[in-house]
């Protein structure tokens, strides 16, 4: 198997350094090719190939059985003129914003706090991590009961003890999206906190001591030592979360079906509906391509912004 692969990749190298294969070998060329084999093979089969085939579908009208029809940019104009698209885009951005403002700091706070604990830290860790173990399908099923808008619902029952509510939760346009953020934060914070905790554990104590000698208080030490030291992890996790939120699907699909009044209709839900409800795979891939382009632009912007914040 690996023989075929060598043939695939080797010519690229050979052309460049025709004069001596021995030179090439000595300089580690073969090792590099060997190390490239798994990733190139896996990506070729399961990422690049399918993606290219998918992109081709975005300029076709296909029922996935008979021969596809070339329709040029028709699918793109179709999805771009969809009257529901601006709202879906706004909703997605709104979700991303809510997630960043309210959801994103939660795991950092948990991690910073747990790291300061001298005892029982493991217990906090454990409790925070438990929701990550609940499969999303099960978690959403449970939370649907919690979000029951009648006064007999679980959250409303609890609020009732304090004389509050009942709140409409998912049933109101204003509360639906925040309710989804609350759920995703619950489901994701613990696992993310563990990653932050690992990073915080790597911060050298001397930095804190130096700060303390300089007279920095506890808050100041957290702000000027911990957070900057976590910078790289925070950037990575933020990018991961952004990509994740722009591909938000399961939660609105299972919780609200995009309602009420499209308040939780997201781009991914639209893509899903094009593909699996309308059976219009061309439109679905066209919107996917647009979303991917947007995310690419976003990540380039992100790259330049974070670069300015990084020292190196």
């Amino acid at each position, binding site marked *: 198997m690996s023989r*075929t692969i060598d043939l695939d990749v080797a010519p690229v190298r050979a052309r460049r350094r025709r004069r001596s294969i021995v030179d090439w070998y000595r300089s580690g060329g073969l*090792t*590099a090719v060997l*190390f490239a084999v*798994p*990733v190139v093979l*896996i990506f070729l*089969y*399961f*990422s*690049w190939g399918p993606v290219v*085939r*998918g*992109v081709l579908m*975005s300029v076709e009208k296909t029922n*996935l059985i008979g021969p596809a029809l070339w329709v040029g940019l028709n699918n793109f104009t179709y999805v771009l003129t969809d009257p529901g698209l601006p709202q879906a885009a706004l909703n997605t951005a709104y979700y991303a914003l809510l997630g960043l403002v309210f959801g994103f700091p939660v795991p950092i706070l948990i991690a910073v*706090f747990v790291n*300061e604990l*001298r*005892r029982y*830290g493991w217990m*906090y860790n*454990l*409790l*925070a991590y*438990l*929701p*990550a173990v609940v*499969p*999303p*399908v*099960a978690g959403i*099923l449970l939370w649907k*009961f919690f979000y029951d808008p009648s006064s007999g619902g*679980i959250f409303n029952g609890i609020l009732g003890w304090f004389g509050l509510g009942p709140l409409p939760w998912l049933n109101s346009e204003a509360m639906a999206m925040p309710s989804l953020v609350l759920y995703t934060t619950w489901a994701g914070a*613990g*696992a993310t906190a*563990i990653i932050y*905790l*690992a*990073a*915080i*554990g*790597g911060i050298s104590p001397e930095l*804190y*001591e130096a700060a303390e000698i300089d007279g920095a208080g*506890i808050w100041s030490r957290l702000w000027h030592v*911990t957070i900057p*030291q976590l*910078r*790289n*992890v925070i950037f990575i996790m933020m990018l*991961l979360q952004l*990509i994740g939120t722009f*591909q938000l699907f399961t939660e609105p699909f299972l919780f609200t079906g995009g309602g009420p009044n499209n308040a939780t209709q997201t781009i991914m839900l639209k*893509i899903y509906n094009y593909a699996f409800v309308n059976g219009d795979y061309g439109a*679905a891939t066209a919107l*996917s391509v647009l979303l*991917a382009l947007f995310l690419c632009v976003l*990540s380039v912007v992100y790259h330049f912004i974070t670069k300015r914040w990084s020292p190196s």
Partner: protein
Amino acid sequence: MSAAGPSIVIAPAELSAIEPVVGRRRRPREAKERGAISAADRKRPIVMVSMWIIQVAMFVGLLVAGLGPIAWSARASVSSSQDIISDPMGIWTAPPRWGNIEQAWNGALIGSSLGNTVIVALGSTVTTLFVSATAAYLLSVLRPRWSALLSGAILATLFLPGVISLVPLYLTILHMPVLNVSLLNTFWGVWLPAGASAFNVIVLKRFFDSIPRELIEAARIDGASAMRVFTTVVIPLSRPILGVVTLLTIIASWKDYLWPMLVLAAPSLQPVSVTLANLPNGSMPFAVQMAAVFLTIIIPVALFVVFQRQFLRGVSSAGGLKG
């Protein structure tokens, strides 16, 4: 605070010990070297009081968030369908129906699907670690001339939503080009695509970038081959980040259901996520479905509680991700 403590107290020193050596003589020592708060700070009353308050508030919050849903699901699993639906808060006092659990265990094949979940998660983790680590080493350390091209091609896939390639990926699995085999109804069909994760490659590459070049150069000068540098220098230094990648992969494969549902069409191969997603289409009474949900939560939770020391230590010890 104390109510939850005594039954499973584990010496904190044990948790954060860096060397996982079993049977080592325990001696009292500072649990962690220190965090933002110093030993001197801890003696100040204001710090003591506020730490205590935060600690209790945090504990109550996490207890409700972490255990609350699981406790409710535990009680729901032994209630009647009518009680769960009509009065979800009132099920605490309803008479328990233990039969639900047995029906769910036998009916939904929870045991075998949990086994499949483990197989899927382990295989996906192995593929992911192998592919991303070799790729990151190539892009970060070996850096052949064409590495910029490769890393651009990998990066480009980071932003593509899965839907765009769902159908083509499925067609690929059914009929692997060149190899002419079908991966349908084999675990390979889930394991191999899991390796194509641009995010993990990038995270590992960034970490490998931060490994001091002197270490690698020193090993090279000692005559170590590129392969040897990889296995004896880079990998051991990257244990924490490999732990993180492992964690992320396991979580992702634990949660993913659409792809396994497509590839593992045979019920005997399906992991828990798929079994759960299929439950509402079955003929099991709702209470039994809730019992199945509970079983799928409680078994991994129990395993996690038992192995949490090893698990959390694996992820959080031995340094961290420094920039």
